């Protein structure tokens, strides 16, 4: 039924794998996936632990709708204390691994301790084993997945693994499943590496049933049709997230050269149009086709082929095949933010990030920070080992991604993430981050709601914790003036709460461009035991947000961490929507705390904690 009511607990120190009942009382309060995983983490670890110590736990969670026939049901999350941020991390991934894990009969996997030697976890329904991975240590994600499928003689196995970046503690290392889907942000891959866990291989044959099958199938079909009829959702199908590159750049909220500018001259060369036009060199398009995650009827994913004669892959046949192509954030971070307009070089960097398990956003933004340090003379060739880190250099980007993926040379410094990198060289003001995590592809000066959303996001700067862009720029549901601050505290709170509960269903947030929260609620109601009214749904979202905040407060984060780099607060944007504007965080933050029922120190008040039953 919906939830299997079962957790798999694996203690890597002791070498034990035990199933245990899921706390169903918590399931009614936190739903699943992001919410329920966060509740377990909150209850089971001391928020003050070192993220890379054996005392941190790594939780893989599915939602009640994961593995059902609702559209986009392939989502799953990794919850832990983030290596990049020291805050609560919840990285959401698609692909096929999540549904496969759920089909094995579990809602959640809790990984504890640290193995003495490299291991991988093998799950085949009730058969769970911790197996040696000595020969795999030092392999890429791609090699690991191939090796596991061959060794177990089963091509249907789904694998989530880390590359060398995760093994060597690159702060923004990701966990990659199905070759190119990522639980990307906040350094969850580094936590996995610190546990000496190379991979989780899974085969599930038990299936998932729902509470009201006929009603559920009816709603699932209707809501799929809504996605098919939606202009935004079909845009995602045709052009992927890359479709917004020219739009966002045109509006002038496209961060460029480490956020020093808000418009990029080369944007048209790295967006969806460029991917879809035949190259002059070999007559082929970069884009091969679109690709769906499990159960998705939208297929925003891109499959790309790099020009075989491009300098990045000329003598490297393993990159000559098709693989996961650029998405908007990746194209922006490694492209616009680094001033690089070479689509093939960006696709190569994207392949390597997948191959070695790195977050494309934080990698790209950390290179951008290094480029600014270099151009300002704060670091020299001596520091970079001869790497000429100039903005716009595709050669530098290509070399940097290979070095960082393997933690070699100056790649070790890039792998620290922008905050520690810039601190190391004495210029913290160059690092564009909140709570240690790099920004996403929207300049907050031209969309004031994002100022607040970035500053208060529980996992550090992130566009997916409160995507106010939807309302401020695209006008989905309603349209608010992007440079106004009025109403933005409420918009941010509502968006954050709604996203928290959406992320906890096991579905993707992209149907939200055609649906409202109603569809998520209706599907959950038909799928899950319990009475999932809209009122309850919103309270669950608010509860999750506050729980994450309480974790962070206990971890030592304070009101002082709800801020933005000076560049946004003091320097007005030169062009675009935010021309002449700075991020007016101080106008919104007190109102936001009040709306949240927090003290002016940024802590949930006792009344709020009581009201939300945390």
């Amino acid at each position, binding site marked *: 039924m919906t939830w299997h009511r079962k957790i798999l607990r694996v203690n890597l120190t002791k070498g034990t794998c035990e199933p245990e009942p899921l706390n169903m009382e918590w399931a009614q309060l936190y739903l699943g996936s992001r919410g329920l995983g966060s509740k377990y983490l909150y209850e089971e670890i001391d928020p003050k632990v070192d993220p890379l110590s054996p005392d941190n736990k790594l939780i893989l969670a599915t939602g009640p709708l994961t593995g059902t026939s609702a559209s986009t049901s392939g989502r799953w999350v990794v919850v832990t204390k983030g290596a990049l941020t020291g805050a609560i991390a919840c990285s959401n991934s698609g692909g096929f691994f999540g549904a496969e894990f759920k089909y094995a009969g579990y809602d959640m996997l809790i990984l504890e301790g640290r193995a003495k030697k490299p291991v991988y976890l093998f799950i085949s329904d009730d058969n769970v084993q911790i197996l040696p991975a000595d020969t795999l240590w030092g392999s890429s994600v791609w090699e690991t997945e191939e090796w596991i499928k061959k060794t177990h003689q089963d091509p249907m196995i789904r694998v989530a693994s880390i590359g060398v970046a995760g093994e060597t503690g690159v702060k923004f290392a990701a966990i990659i499943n199905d070759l190119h889907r990522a639980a990307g942000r906040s350094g969850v891959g580094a936590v996995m590496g610190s546990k000496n866990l190379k991979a989780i291989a899974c085969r599930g044959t038990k299936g*998932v*049933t729902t509470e009201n099958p006929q009603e559920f199938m009816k709603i699932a079909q209707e809501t*799929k049709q809504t996605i098919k009829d939606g202009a935004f959702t079909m845009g995602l199908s045709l052009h992927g997230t890359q479709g917004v590159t020219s739009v966002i750049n045109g509006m002038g909220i496209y961060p460029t050269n480490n956020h020093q500018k808000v418009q990029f001259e080369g944007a048209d060369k790295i967006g969806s149009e460029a991917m879809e036009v035949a190259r002059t060199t070999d007559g082929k398009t970069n884009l091969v086709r679109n*690709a769906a995650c499990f159960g998705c*009827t939208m297929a925003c994913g891109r499959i790309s082929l790099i020009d075989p004669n491009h300098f990045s892959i000329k003598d490297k046949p393993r990159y000559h095949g098709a*693989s996961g192509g650029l998405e908007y954030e990746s194209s922006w971070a490694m492209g616009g933010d680094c001033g690089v307009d070479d689509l093939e070089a960006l696709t190569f960097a994207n392949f390597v990030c997948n191959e070695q398990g790195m977050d494309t956003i934080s990698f790209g933004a950390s290179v951008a920070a290094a480029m600014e340090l270099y151009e300002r003379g704060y670091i020299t060739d001596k520091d970079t080992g001869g790497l000429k880190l100039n903005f716009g250099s595709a050669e530098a980007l290509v070399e940097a991604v290979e070095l960082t993926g393997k933690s070699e040379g100056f790649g070790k410094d890039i792998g620290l993430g922008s905050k520690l990198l810039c601190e190391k060289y004495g210029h913290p003001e160059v690092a564009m981050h909140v709570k240690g995590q790099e920004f996403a592809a929207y300049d907050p000066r031209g969309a004031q709601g994002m100022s607040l959303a970035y500053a208060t996001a529980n996992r550090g700067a992130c566009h997916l914790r409160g995507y106010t862009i939807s309302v401020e720029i695209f006008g989905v549901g309603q349209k608010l003036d992007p440079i106004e601050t009025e109403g933005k505290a409420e918009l941010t709170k509502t968006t954050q709460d709604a996203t928290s509960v959406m992320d906890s269903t096991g579905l993707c947030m992209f149907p939200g461009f055609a649906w409202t929260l109603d569809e998520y609620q209706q599907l959950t109601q038909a799928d899950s035991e319990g009475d999932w009214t809209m009122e309850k749904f919103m309270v669950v979202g608010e509860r999750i947000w506050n729980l994450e905040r309480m974790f962070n407060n206990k971890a030592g984060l304070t009101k002082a961490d709800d801020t933005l780099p000076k560049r946004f607060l003091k320097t007005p944007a030169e062009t675009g929507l935010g021309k002449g504007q700075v991020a007016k965080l101080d106008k919104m933050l007190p109102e936001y705390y009040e709306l949240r029922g927090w003290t002016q120190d940024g802590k949930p008040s006792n009344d709020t904690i009581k009201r939300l039953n945390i």
Partner: protein
Amino acid sequence: MACAFELEGSFNPAHSRIKIFRFEEQGRFVPYTCTQCAEAWCLHACPVDAIKMNAETGAKVVDEATCVGCKVCTIACPFGTVNYNQSSGKVIKCDLCGGDPACAKACPTEAITYVDANWTGLDKMREWAAKTDTGHSVTEAPSEPAGH
């Protein structure tokens, strides 16, 4: 998922009669299922006559009550589309859902459609017919094939 739900009552691709193969490096995804051969080798190979043809749909259908789970049909099928189901001890294959396939209904992009195999050429014929000059003016050209 629609397939497993229709036939087994749960969302479980492991029991789906359709398998999808991903050829990652070429960026190709290929679904595969029973082709309902006219001369069905699985049907002929079955020692207990558990596989019968449904006269209405042309589907070769496994009668679960008769099937003894010997797996001979899984060897006989040249395409590998008949498979053994460990939990029931019988074989499973596509039965076209009695003429109303759940997969076609669930497919959002109409990549799966249910058409009469005897008339697969009809649309193409109509397309060509529309381009053919029959001597009538274009506006009077019949939009439906003769006989309809």
